C-alpha cells in the first residue's frame, strides 16, 4: 500500500571507511513483492534498515509514495510512524514477554479492545502453528518457533510495508513452505508492499515478482526472477540466484575449450564471446550424462567425462564429473545411480550455456 523510492541512496559507516550502500536507485511499487539477493556483507540489512528508518542514509533521498521520509542525512519520518512490519535477521523478540504478549505488542499501541487483540493474535498464531506455545517465553521456544513469533508480530498489525530480513532461515523444509505460502497469502489479501531479503533463491522464486541482486552496495541487476536466473549479468549474479557450474575456458574458432571439453557456438545462450579468456556458466539442469550417444538435436555433446563424486540429495543423485586429467568440475542431477570412476558422455542443452567475457 506504499511505493518505496530510493534516489541515489548511500550509506557509509565509520566516517566513510565502510560503504554499505553505494548510490542505490530503485522504485518498489505499491503492492509489489520485491526480493533482495546478495552475498554476505553486500548491504542487504543496511538497505532494509534504511527503509525502516532505523538507519539514516548518509546521502540521497528515500520516499514513501511522494513523501520524503529521509534525505541528506536527516530523518523526516521516524520508524514508529512508517507503518512497517519487520522481521529482523535476529528476530528481536522481547525476552520478558510471552509469545502471546510479543505478538500482541504492536496491537497494544493501537486503540483496540483486549478481546479483539486476543482474537487477532490467536488467528495468526493458528496459521503459523504456534498456538500451543503462546504462553512460552522466547527462551522456551525453538529457533523456528521464535522466527514464527517474530513473523506473527510483524503480520498481526497489518502494516502497509512488510520487511523480511532472512525470515525463514531457521525453518525446516515443510514449515518453510507454509511460511512462504502464508506470507504470500497475507500480502495478497492486504495488498501490502513486501520486501524480502534471503540467501535462499527458493524463497525469492516463491515470493518475489521482481528481484534485485545487491553486490557490494550496488544493484548489479534488477529484474524478474526468471530473467535473472536465465540471463544474469555476471557469474556472481548467476550463482546467487541458483546453482551453477562455473568453468574457465579459452576461446577458439570451434567454441570455448575447457580442458578436454569443448562448448561449440550452438550451446551459447546468446552472447558472443569476445575476449580470449572466457567464463562460462552452466546450470545443472542443462547438463545430461549418458552412457550411450544421444540422438537429439537439443542436446549437444561436449566431451567424455569421468565421474568423481556421487551424492544423494532430494531424491536425486548429485553427480560431479570432470574431464579426464582435469580439476574442472561439472555438477548435475540424475535419477539413476552411476559409479565413481566410470567414463560417461557429457551433453549440454542447446542455447543454455552462459558466456561471460573477462
Amino acid at each position: 500500500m506504499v511505493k518505496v523510492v530510493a534516489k541515489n541512496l548511500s550509506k557509509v559507516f565509520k566516517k566513510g571507511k565502510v560503504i554499505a550502500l553505494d548510490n542505490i536507485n530503485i522504485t518498489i511499487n505499491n503492492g509489489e513483492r520485491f526480493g533482495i539477493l546478495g552475498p554476505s556483507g553486500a548491504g542487504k540489512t543496511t538497505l532494509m534498515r534504511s527503509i525502516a528508518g532505523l538507519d539514516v542514509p548518509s546521502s540521497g533521498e528515500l520516499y514513501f509514495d511522494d513523501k520524503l521520509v529521509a534525505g541528506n542525512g536527516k530523518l523526516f519520518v521516524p520508524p514508529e510512524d512508517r507503518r512497517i512490519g519487520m522481521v529482523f535477521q535476529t528476530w528481536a523478540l522481547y525476552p520478558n514477554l510471552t509469545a502471546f504478549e510479543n505478538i500482541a505488542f504492536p496491537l497494544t499501541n493501537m486503540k483496540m479492545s483486549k478481546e479483539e487483540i486476543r482474537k487477532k493474535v490467536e488467528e495468526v498464531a493458528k496459521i503459523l502453528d504456534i498456538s500451543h506455545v503462546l504462553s512460552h517465553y522466547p527462551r522456551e521456544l525453538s529457533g523456528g518457533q521464535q522466527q514464527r513469533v517474530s513473523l506473527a508480530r510483524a503480520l498481526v498489525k497489518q502494516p502497509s510495508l512488510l520487511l523480511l530480513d532472512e525470515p525463514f532461515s531457521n525453518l525446516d523444509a515443510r514449515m518453510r513452505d507454509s511460511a512462504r505460502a502464508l506470507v504470500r497469502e497475507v500480502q495478497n489479501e492486504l495488498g501490502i508492499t513486501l520486501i524480502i531479503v534471503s540467501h535462499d533463491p527458493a524463497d525469492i522464486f516463491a515470493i518475489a515478482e521482481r528481484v534485485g541482486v545487491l553486490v557490494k552496495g550496488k544493484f548489479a541487476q534488477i529484474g524478474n526472477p526468471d530473467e535473472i536466473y536465465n540471463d544474469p549479468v555476471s557469474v556472481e549474479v548467476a550463482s546467487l540466484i541458483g546453482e551453477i557450474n562455473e568453468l574457465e575456458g579459452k576461446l577458439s574458432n570451434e567454441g570455448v575449450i575447457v580442458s578436454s571439453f569443448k562448448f561449440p557456438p550452438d550451446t551459447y545462450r546468446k552472447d558472443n564471446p569476445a575476449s580470449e579468456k572466457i567464463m562460462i556458466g552452466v546450470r545443472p539442469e542443462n547438463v545430461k550424462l549418458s552412457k550411450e550417444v544421444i540422438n537429439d538435436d537439443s542436446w549437444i555433446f561436449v566431451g567424455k567425462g569421468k565421474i568423481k563424486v556421487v551424492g544423494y540429495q532430494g531424491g536425486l543423485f548429485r553427480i560431479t564429473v570432470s574431464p579426464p586429467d582435469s580439476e574442472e568440475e561439472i555438477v548435475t542431477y540424475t535419477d539413476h545411480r552411476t559409479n565413481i570412476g566410470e567414463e560417461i558422455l557429457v551433453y549440454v542443452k542447446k542455447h543454455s550455456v552462459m558466456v561471460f567475457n573477462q
Partner: protein
Amino acid sequence: MRPVIKASLHYLALAVVSVLWLIPVYAMVINGFKSDLEVSSTPVLVPPTQFSIGAYVSVFGSLAKPLLNSLIIVIPTSFIAAFLGAMGAYFFYTLSYSYSRFSSTLSDVLFSLIALATFIPYQATLIPLTRLIVDMGLLDTYAGIIFAMLIFYIPTGALLMSMFISVLPRSLVEAAKIDGTGDLKIFLKIVFPLSMPGFISTLIFIIIQSWNNFFIPLVLVTTPEMKLISVAVEAYTGGYGTLYNDTFAAAMLASIIPLAIFIFLGRYFIRGLIALGGGGKGV
C-alpha cells in the same frame, strides 16, 4: 602449579581476607553484649563472660525514632533515585543512538556532567544546599532531606543504570519503535523489566549510601525529633565519658538494616553485576 595446591592457596587467601573483614564486625557484636564494667576491663576481642543486653536496652530507647526517621527518608529516596536514574539512563541511551551528531554529542556532554556531579563531595555543596532548602521552607522536614538526597543520588542512579541499560540489545528498542511504541512505553515495558537485576543492584547501593549519609542530615535537621540514625549514632562516639558497650550496641543497631538488605538481597546485587558481564542476558 598443581590444581589442588592452586585451589588451596586460593581458599587460604579468601579465608584471610574474610577474617580481616569480619574482625570489626565481630568486635561490634560481642562488645555490645558486655556489661559496663566488663567492656572497659577486658580486651576488645575477648567475648563477654556474661551476655548482657543492658547496652541495647539503654541505646534502643534513644535510637528508635532516628531509625524510623532513617527508614522514612531512605526508602523513598532510594526508589525514586534509582527509578528516575534509570529513566535518565534510558534517555541517554536513546540520545547516543540518535541519528543526529548533535544529540549524540549532547548526550556525551550531559553524561560527563552527571558523572562529574556524582564525584562532587557533599561538604563542598553544603552551604548552597542548606540555603536552597531553607528558601524552599523545607528545613527540618522529611521532604527537605529527601529532596537534598535526591539531588545527589539521582545522578548516581543514572550513572549506574546506564551501565546496565547500555548492554541491552539495541534491536529490542528498534523492534519496539517499529511496533509503533513511544519511548515511555518502551522504557516501562521493555527496558525497565529487562534491566531489573541492574535496578536492584542500584537500589541496594543507594539504600546503603543514603543510610550512611552523614552530612546532609547533619545540616538539614535542627530538632532532635528529626534526627537520622547516622547522626544519632555519632552521639555515642567521642566526647567525654564514652561508654563503649553503648557505642557498639548503637553501631550494631544502625547497621542492622543495611546488613539485612545485603544478606537478603545480596545475591541480586551480584546477579546484576553478572548480567553486566554476560551482555545483559541475566534475565
